[in-house]
């Protein structure tokens, strides 16, 4: 019957899958522009990763392999979805698919602790914006109203906040975490 050795390889595979979840989701989210669609595609991707797990070759990049699988699921999703509900054009999606493995290759997970400390280091206004948008789920419009500014300005501020967070995370990742 089922042997212990197999069990451990299964749990290693589970580890591998966990290690790419946030990157896959980021990639998919960037490509579809809708969180719940990205979640759906990620579900399907995970299923396929399991189904095809014997195809994965040890020693190669699990991230690159899983991103490729995610790309195919993404394309399948786009095929099902009617054209006018897709925001990005095909060629753009292809370009992003080609570049994502590199762009996101260094992102480590999980990151929660580091992220929280980076968040704390943000300038106050940016932090409030981030908290308002992500923790209180306020729309850009509401935030613009609250902060007495325009929607594009909120967008740019959020952009900068995320950029600072990313730089901060990169810095923390290159040094051992506390």
């Amino acid at each position: 019957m089922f042997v212990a050795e197999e069990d451990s390889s299964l749990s290693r595979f589970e580890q591998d899958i966990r290690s790419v979840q946030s990157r896959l989701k980021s990639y998919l989210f960037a490509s579809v522009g809708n969180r719940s669609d990205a979640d759906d595609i990620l579900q399907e991707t995970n299923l396929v990763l399991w189904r095809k797990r014997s195809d994965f070759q040890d020693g190669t990049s699990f991230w690159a392999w899983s991103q490729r699988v995610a790309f195919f699921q993404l394309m399948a999703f786009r095929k099902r979805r009617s054209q006018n509900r897709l925001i990005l054009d095909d060629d753009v999606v292809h370009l992003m698919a080609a570049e994502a493995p590199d762009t996101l290759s260094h992102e480590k997970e999980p990151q929660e602790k580091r992220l929280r400390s980076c968040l704390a280091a943000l300038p106050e206004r940016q932090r409030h914006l981030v908290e308002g948008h992500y923790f209180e789920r306020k729309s850009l419009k509401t935030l613009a109203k609250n902060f007495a500014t325009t929607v594009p300005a909120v967008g740019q501020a959020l952009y900068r906040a995320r950029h600072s967070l990313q730089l901060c995370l990169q810095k923390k990742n290159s040094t051992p975490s506390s």
Partner: protein
Amino acid sequence: MTDHDRSLLTGYLAGTLTPKESEALNQLLRSDPEARAALLQQAHLDQLLHDVSGEPEVSVIPFNTSPPKENPRRQKTLPLALGAAAALTIAGISFVALRPDSAPPKELAVRDEQLEKPKPNPTPEETYSRAIAKLQDSGSQKRSVSQAPTLVSAPGKKISYNQHIRPILSENCFHCHGPDQAKREADIALHEPEVAYAAIKGIAPIVPGKPDESEVVHRIFDEDDPMPPSDSNRSLTDEEKELLKRWIAEGAEYEKHWAFVPPEKPAPPTVEDHSVPVHNPIDHFIQSKLAEKGLSPSPEAKPEVLARRASLALTGLQPDLDLLDQYLSNPTSQAYEQYVDQLLESDAYAERMALFWLDAGRYADTDGYQNDSPRSNWPWRDWVIKAYRDNMPFDRFTIEQLAGDMLPDATETQQLASAFNRNHRQNNEGGALAEEFLVENVIDRVETTSTIWLGLTTGCARCHDHKYDPISQREFFQLYAYFNNINERGIGRGIEAQPVKRFTSPLNKIPADLQRKKDLAEQAITDARKTAPERLQEWLENHHQLASEDSNRWNQAFLQSASTTEGQGALTALPDHTYLFEGNNISQTSYYLQLKLEKGERLTGLRLDALGHDSFKGLSRSNNGNFVLTGVNLSHTPTQTEQALSVKIAKAVASFEQKNYPAQNALDNKDNTGWAVSGNPDSEASLVLVLEKALEAQVAGELEIHLQFNSPFADHNIGRLRVQTSSSKDLLNGLGLQTNKPVYAAIRKKEADRSAAEKKLLQDHFKTIDPVMKKAEENLAKVEGEFASKGLGAVPVMVMNESSGEPAPAYLLNRGQYNEPDKSEALPRRMLEALLPGDDQPADRLELARWLVSRENPITARVVVNRMWQRMMGVGLVKTSEDFGSQGELPVNPELLDWLALEFIDSGWDVKGLYRTIVTSHTFRQSSRSNPRLNEIDPENRYLARGPRYRLDGFAIRDIALNASGLLHPKLGGAPVKPYQPAGLWASVAANKGTNYIESKGQDLFRKSMYTYWKRAVNPPRQTIFDASGREVCNVRHKITNTPLQALALMNDETFLEAARNLAARGLREAGAQPQERLAYLYRLATGYTPDSEMMAIFESNHSHFAEHFAQHPEEADDFLNVGASPRDPQLDPIEHAAYTATAHLILNLDETITLE
């Protein structure tokens, strides 16, 4: 990245972009890699932030591996109880979005079998493979009634490999132990006796006569380590195991697969029961099989039912009422046969049969793939209609379509027929690789030909040896070698994908005088082509002569004076008697050149050479070295009279002409046109002016040449000029030559000195100037214009055109990949070994086509008659009409199949003849009523104890409605049409903007459905709903489903509402005044039936309900009568019309209307 870009990215992630912003975002991402990287990183942070703020995680394990803790019997109800945990169940696999605080997921998928027989806890692998098995449809309906092997069917009878054993082995064992050597497990194979009997280390899979020594028997009964393995998703029933064991005990005799054994024409068996008629041998075979199964045939259907059935089966339309009445007036068997003959003679028959062939031949009006560009192969579709109408024998039908281009002296229509092999998709996406899609096209040809003529799924052998049938990958590519030799490019739009030829529809009725004109024009071309070598020779000789004299022909002119417009530069003579222009920033200027003519001198032409000079680049002082000569005037002034006379120029020819600036433009003296030379490859440019009449100077005089450079461009006047004169008589003839330097050089050589390339060059050049050919071509173009103006124009059709010379090599492609050819060996063409052993193989596509319809081929006639049977009866004698291989169904009545096959060949492949035999058999004529006993023994009516009954396809259903209403426009053939379809459908799926469906107008809205424009990426939705195939690839069998969408289409589709309105109008106009008469007439128009009293009562109550309703709501009547483009009959009272329309609509929705019964 600008701030605007940043807010675009944020807006995208927040989901707030407007369409316009989306477009800008795409543009940004397309052009800026930095923006793409930023988007990915921003999305990453966005998602991290979301997760930190408490978004639930996605489960990474699609199924639960922990053993169930509760009694499985209770767990079956669990999915409902788990509602709180947001469970989503897809085909047995459960996804659970885990909240950190929620309970771990429970085992959700429990199959019924487990409830019966509780098994030990399933391993993840088992759970997993079960779930996958559920995801994939297990295709268990494959086996026919005759195949369900039972021990009962075998007592006393020897077990047959083909009948009983092969289906078991094929289904359960061949996947790993079959023909595919690459995937063979443990070196054991069971598909051939040689390997199955062979012992490895003293153990043989099968020892004939000795089941106890056969490893196969051990393993299939082994409970601990069974075969097929428990994780293989395959299993043997106890009966199947016993059958295998008995077969081995009886000697394990293999048989060649039935379809590969040549058929022999069996004598029709005698029939004992004489209670029902026997019209032809079909009935002998069917009734004898029924007797064997303890069933008896049904009596003949009522005449009106039978007449309707035959009409629907043969023409796809309800009976024509005149024909029907003629038959019903005296419904004898003979009258029925006459009625059938009339159906077979109708155009509708030809259209109906062509429709099936279009599906098989994957005909479509677009190229498919992403761009899905339009194409115009429809003349081929009309060829098919004509072939059926003329009852072209099926062997000729085959040969012309597969190799019409290769027939000796192939006619136009034979070449058109070869378009069959070009109906494949054609990729013209940017970046598509020509080599890749060339391979796809050829493979499509192999697969289509195999399915239609061989009934084999050769496509499986593209990537590996076939898993079930004796078709190796090598053999696949040997078939490929017949189809890869037409010098195609693989990509590009269909209408340009060479070989392409222009054809008109062969159905066109062309007026005799017009045809005669065309024949003459074509004959003239043929004649011109035949005599071209003589003209070429003559031209070469003349012009060699002329060209040799050429150097003497031009004499450099010594000008008396050369001046320019005052203040606009100056001309200076150089020592070589050329004239240099000096001056800067000249906007407009003219050169005035004076030339002395002596008495007796003769002038036929002038030559102006624009030359370069060290002081400027190119041929003028302008920035780009170009000039524009906007006018030339010559005037002659004899010294005596001093009266200037204008000299006319007949023609201007230049050594080079810039696009839109031809030399001839210099003669019109208009400032906005002229001769210019941008892009001139040479260091100089020449203009030859030919005088209309030679100037014979009776007395001495002067010629003034006035050149105008009046273009708006600065300094666009010739920088250095030489003038030459000629007195040569034959100036015009030689002109073409001087302007083409390579030709000029070649023709100046003696014939013997010319290289092959030069000879070819001269020949090609002559073709472009050959006046006889030009005239013939112009004439033909004129005639073709006349054709086009009468709607008989030719359109480009993709055809086959076998290349001459050494055929293109074919290689085995590893894994079927275009870029992995095994070049160690070019594969010779050959038919599948299993069908045609030996070395005597068809040498090319034509021979292949001929072999397919030869008596030596065991399979094609069977495959073809089976499809014809399927078209009439709804199901083939072999249900899997696309697969006669080992995974296909065994024929339910093999003797009948063979008899039909050989009868078909013996009749000279007479298509109408065979249909006639089928539909005049008692088997076809039987009542289709079933009964409980029959339903139990033969629910699918495979033995045909009753007549056929099936839902019609969407094409017929629409045509019937149009026909009943009188809207159907009976035009035969022609360009496809675009009837109603939901608005915006194309635009929403098209790859390119502006792909809109433009509805046809007038009668084209009401053509038969087979003429509906077939776009591969967006099939006509009405047909898709009714199970039509997509025409991407070959399809020879439709599924027939019944779904709510179909009912919704019938109830709401504009087509059917409009048809109902017109049908009602016919009832009001053509039937008597009584509602009963009118309603009965409506029903008869739709079905050909006369309603009984029960039905009449329903119609009447329905009608009176609506009459009352519309009387109370007259505004609704107006709306209701407003559907569709056809005009409403203003003579009819709207309330009455609307009420009858409602009942007519009911009638068009009846089961009787849409079902063949």
